């Protein structure tokens, strides 16, 4: 554990510290390379034709324009992106609001009954998705919600994991301030919106990253409830490209690239807050 040692407050000059860190750098570079290589491959594959992709070519080709043209000719890319943004956006907003309210309620208003309820809700985390799919489909079908945004988002809005995360993060929320605000005449709900929300910015960011990624990449459930072309999401669109007797891998990877960009952007934009939000959760 070289790094632990190097933390010692010795008056060593920085170049010797960096020298001692060389093995660490090498290790991290190898790990980073392994982590990023598949993404690099995804991007190069989107610029190659199908035969080259199947043969594992790993340098850039000049089929990007052709692949893109074929992609929009075969699939309604704009609609797929639009749907995915809509569903993932609604799911993220709803989940953030509902789970943070619950996490806040569980921690700051906690009593024996609420703690018991929380333990019961945690059980839901252990329910396998395959088990609930068929009964959930029946609910959605009877409620005439198939192919609507609600069928997509409702089962995923309230998750024990997010509630737990908000609950943990609420532990460092100063109780005295709530009292002060109450004395000032602030309503209970006002405290939540005006004081809790701004302070928990980082937690919201972390929750948003996790929820958005899950919603964007969801595949099994949407396939069950969204069976109209106009309701298709990006992962379903990609699955369409990957199916069939012959698959054009260049076009497929172009689709995969489009599907990957939004989650990457969300992560890059929010990564600092993401780390902070998680920090509170594991305290």
């Amino acid at each position: 554990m070289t790094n632990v040692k190097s933390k010692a407050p010795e008056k060593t000059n920085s170049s010797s510290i960096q020298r001692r860190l060389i093995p660490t750098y090498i290790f991290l570079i190898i790990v980073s390379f392994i982590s990023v290589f598949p993404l690099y491959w995804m991007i190069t594959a989107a610029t190659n034709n199908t035969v080259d992709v199947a043969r594992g070519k790993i340098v850039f080709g000049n089929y990007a324009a052709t692949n893109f043209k074929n992609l929009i000719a075969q699939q309604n890319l704009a609609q797929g992106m639009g749907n995915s943004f809509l569903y993932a956006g609604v799911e993220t907003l709803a989940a953030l609001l509902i789970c943070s309210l619950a996490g806040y309620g569980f921690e700051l208003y906690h009593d024996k009954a609420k703690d018991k309820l929380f333990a019961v809700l945690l059980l839901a985390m252990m329910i396998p998705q395959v088990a609930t799919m068929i009964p959930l489909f029946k609910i959605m079908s009877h409620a005439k919600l198939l192919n609507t945004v609600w069928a997509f988002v409702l089962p995923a809005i309230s998750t024990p994991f997010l509630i737990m995360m908000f609950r943990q993060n609420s532990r460092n929320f100063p109780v005295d301030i709530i009292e002060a605000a109450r004395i000032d005449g602030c309503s209970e709900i006002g405290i939540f919106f005006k004081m809790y929300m701004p302070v928990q910015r980082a937690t919201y960011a972390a929750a948003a990253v996790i929820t958005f990624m899950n919603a964007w990449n969801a595949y099994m459930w949407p396939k069950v409830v969204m069976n109209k072309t106009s309701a298709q999401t990006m992962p379903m669109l990609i699955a369409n490209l990957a199916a069939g007797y012959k698959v054009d891998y260049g076009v497929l990877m172009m689709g995969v690239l489009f599907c990957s960009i939004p989650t990457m952007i969300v992560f890059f934009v929010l990564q600092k807050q993401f780390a902070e939000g998680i920090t509170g959760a594991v305290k």
Partner: protein
Amino acid sequence: MRKKLVSILLATVTTVSLAACGSSTASTTASSTAGDSTATATSDASAAASESTDTAAATAATTAVNVDTANEGDDTLSVYAWDANFNIPALKDAEKDYQDNVDPNFKLNIIQASQSSDVENAITLAASAGDYSTLPDIVLFQDHYFHKYVTDYPDAFQSVDDAGVDWTDFGAEKLSYSTVDNKHYGFPVDNGTVIMAYRVDLLKQAGYTIDDMKGISWDDFIKIGQEVYAKTGKYLLSMDGDGNDLVYMMLQAEGVSQFKDNTTPYISDNKTLVEVVNKIVEMQQKNVLYLANDWSEYTDQTIMGDMVAGVMNGNWIIPTIEQVKDNSGKWEITTMPTLEGNGKEGYASNGGSSLYITANCKKADLAKKFLAYTFGGSTVTYDGALKDGGVITTCISAGKSDAYQAGVAYFNNQPIYSQIVAMGANVPVIQQSDYHYDCRTQIAAAIQNIIGGADATSALKDAEDQLNMDMGN
């Protein structure tokens, strides 16, 4: 550290709260907007899209559904299909054919599923909710599953006996899938007739011609395959080892089934099957056959990756072969080898689907008229399907059109399409079962185990036991 953090928090929060609670009356409206803005601020990228669409979401989504089926005009039919390069172009050609020659207002709303099982699942799920209204008017359905679905969900499909189609114009083997209790349900789309395609240039290097491959036995095939592998390093055959269709195809060429009747497997005491399995294992061990790990390795690595000198499968494999432009003119097709050989040619059929009208179709007359006109025998539809999707018909008269007689450059100008239609007429009808794919999986597993060193008799017995278990026997 922690204390410090708390004090900073305290400081910021008190300032915020002072500002916020200045006028406590404006609590609900003001606070909800404040809440929204924080939420959007934190979720940045997602907010960009959802903020504006959030309120529009409900309306947009609900109207979206209606566009698909409910708001359809009287001249529109919806159909579920799954392959953008194969059966969907065929459906588009049929739509155009009907528009041009019957009803210019006609419209076909094609809903793309990502795989055939999506269609099966849609029916299973609709049935479980007791509500077929979520189904489209017409579904494309895999042939091997249809009997099972009609048995399990008798209310899900409509009979098309009164559609006015001359059924004698279709291959009997194909119709056997879509006919239940002598009632016709489906309109055949494609043709699963098996082709045995060879790279003639590679055969030549080993000293053989395409004619040498006609009517040979599997033992001859193995002998030639070993020479080809020694000379060129290419396998003479490949298959997806996970969904191994070789057993079914080789058995059908012998006129033998894996089932005694719909629900009784015929495996461990089936001498022909045991022999076929032994041949497959021998081929694999002698580098004549390459068993891929899954479907995509089969198509991408073995066929498109140029690992093989021969391909044997349903003729829908042709577009995959044609992906490798460099090999144009080097391929030719012929019939399958058989166990007996000595001039006996093998015929089989693998895969394929038909179009069915669902119980939800309220315009059944239109659907029947449309399907009978197009897939019931229109040369315009079938020529277009051949050209745009490589879909070959089982309709005997439509297979006689000029488009079918033309030579195909990729296959050294052989008129492969008319050859395939002719071969299709010779495919023997064998006992089918609802558990076709289940059986395929179990026997494929047995073959993998035998190759891995298991005893053939006990491996096949295990497969039969597991299959019986799946079938609830």
